[in-house]
């Protein structure tokens, strides 16, 4: 069966990275923290806040007591 090298390379990379993640979880966490700090510091919390703000009860709570929704 002919093998397409262009498709095998990314597959091999995925497997290699997953293997590395399994073998060195602490190192991976450190890398992840550095990548997040370099790209989008605090992004996860910000995106979760946006997600929560879409829930109706959160919107009512955000308006404070005594105010009409």
């Amino acid at each position, binding site marked *: 069966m002919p093998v397409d090298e262009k*498709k095998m390379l990314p597959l091999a990379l*995925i497997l290699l990275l997953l293997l590395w993640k399994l073998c060195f979880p602490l190192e991976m966490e450190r890398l992840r923290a550095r990548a997040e700090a*370099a790209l989008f510091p605090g992004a996860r919390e910000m*995106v979760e806040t946006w997600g929560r703000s*879409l829930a109706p009860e959160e919107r009512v709570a955000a308006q404070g007591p005594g105010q009409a929704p």
Partner: protein
Amino acid sequence: MEIGAGAAFLFAALCFFLTGEELLALLLPLCAHELGHLGAILALGLRPRGFRAGPEGFTLSYSGEAGALAHALVAAAGPLAGLLYALAAARLQGLLGLSWLPLTAGLSLALSLFNLLPALPLDGGQLLLQLACAFLGERRGERLLRLLSFATAALLLALGAALLLRGRGWGLLLAGAALLFSALRPAGLVKMRKIR
């Protein structure tokens, strides 16, 4: 269906850096978005012809005769489905209490709003391209969208640079650079190709 090497490398990086929950929280909004496009294509009597995943995103190809409004609706259906998914996920959080639901709702909201920016090859750009071509003619419409795409990319780059200087990371600057790169490539102009 075609998955390019760039998309595979990006997926490899996501698998590496994200947890299983985070990956699910990201992939579900992407599926909702593409299903929105697909649903609109089928509902309007058009024929889906192919799907390609590249580093710049996904491309749905379709064929069939339809007016500019129908093509604009196909472009708008993706972000609309993403916004509906975000609302549904946020509401389900109260019922199911799954910890990743606010994350997936927020990601879907962010992806949908980003996709609505008036720049090609994003959905907002596609939507405006159809309308501009219908009202101004094909050449003037395309020229207007090219200008809008450059302006949007330049604005994102400027915002990204400002955020970087304030210690808020490289993310938006890279997004602006990617958008500028897409706008410069003629092949990247059309995300959802109409095949005649």
